[in-house]
């Protein structure tokens, strides 16, 4: 039988050292070991993007990566976006634009949107849609999702309404 491997991973600004089986997927490590259930498992086949997190600042699908591959790297999940109890601009924008119906795709959508905006701070609407092609919303609420990303790119999302809402979201 395969032995376990010791990994050290920084997740949402906290360093963790754990023994893991090599076959443990990163998403399972985040959810089942670290309790970071904000990252969801959707299709489990690299299609839907619900499990999107950042690895060293760029988006990856955590269902298609082994936890051992993250050894020595920095992972950011949806739970690491808010700062000092205040929603990040994209979180605020998804709230203001009502960019969710059931909400299952939302953590992945926001993490991919953050990666998109880091690479291209002022995307066109088509670039936003292309940038989100690896994230599926089965409520088909894409219109408002694109509007939310756009409002952050355009700087029209409100910057001070976050605190009162955080308690209900966190």
């Amino acid at each position, binding site marked *: *039988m395969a032995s376990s*491997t010791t990994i050290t991973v920084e997740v949402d600004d906290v360093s963790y050292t754990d023994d893991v089986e090599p*076959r443990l*997927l990163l998403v399972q490590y985040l959810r089942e070991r670290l309790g970071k259930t904000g990252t969801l498992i959707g299709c*489990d*086949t*690299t299609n839907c993007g619900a499990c999107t997190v950042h690895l060293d600042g760029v*988006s990856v699908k955590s269902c298609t990566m082994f936890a*051992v591959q993250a050894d020595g790297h920095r992972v950011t999940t949806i739970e690491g976006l808010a700062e000092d109890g205040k929603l990040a601009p994209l979180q605020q924008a998804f709230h203001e634009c009502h960019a969710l119906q059931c909400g299952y795709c939302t953590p992945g959508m926001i993490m991919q949107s953050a990666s998109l905006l880091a690479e291209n701070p002022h995307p066109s609407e088509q670039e936003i849609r292309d940038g989100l092609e690896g994230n599926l919303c089965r409520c088909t609420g894409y219109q408002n999702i694109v509007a939310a990303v756009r409002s952050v790119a355009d700087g029209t999302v409100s910057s001070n309404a976050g605190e009162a809402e955080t308690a209900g979201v966190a």
Partner: protein
Amino acid sequence: MIPSAFDYAAPATVAEALDLLAAAGDDVKLLAGGQSLIPVMKLRLADPAMVIDLGRIGELSGVRDDGDALLIGAMTPHHQVATDSLIATHLPLLAKAAATVADPQVRHRGTFGGALVHADPAGDLPAPVLAADATFILAGPAGERRVGAADFFQGYFTTAVADGEILTHIRVPKYTGWGAHYEKFTRVAQQWSIVAVAAMVRVEGGTIAEARIGLTNMASTPVRATAVEQALAGAPMTRDAIAAASVHAAEGTDPASDLNGDAAYRRHLAEVLTRRAVIAAAGL
């Protein structure tokens, strides 16, 4: 879905990886970006006893100028191929094809060499690499071996990489100043190519001096559309001339029939997409 258990090693050098590979026996897989291997392992269509992760070998990643060619590390992610300035200048066809692979998250993890060794007939990188006449550099127990693109792809998911060997770099000749386009046909976003066409043209005055065209998913391996290339060489740079040459696109191909389309439909697509690709590459 959880893969079968396996032993794991993450060597820091190619030499160390070759030693591990030699010692591992037959039941071993090399892990590059994992965007094809991990899904297959999760479905337990593959259950290797050992996985050797190439992700810690720095010398395998990156793009270097190598005189009349670019040397692309096998572990260079698709996103880097799509955005690298050397590739944009000298091999825009590769950048355009890499930008169509899967989705942004997969392009951040998936690698150029990993996708080429996977050799999926519907993959987007084999046809451009074949059209560019690239050379594959393989490291093995007996040293380095070089294989031309025309000999590298041997069948469905099958390449010239032998047991005990590792693809380290792909050397792609520069096509500086050539027009390039990758025309991909899918029904929905984020789908494998039903058919796609990789085209490069060198234009002199109003004439197409040379053309190089590779077809994706028109056989078990990528294929060159040599009849189209010959018809285009010396042809006037007009839509009519390109359309006339594109009629030959499906010659010598052997496309599969599947849920996305039968062989006749793929032959039709090859002609239409070749016309579009060459027109776009020529800047018409």
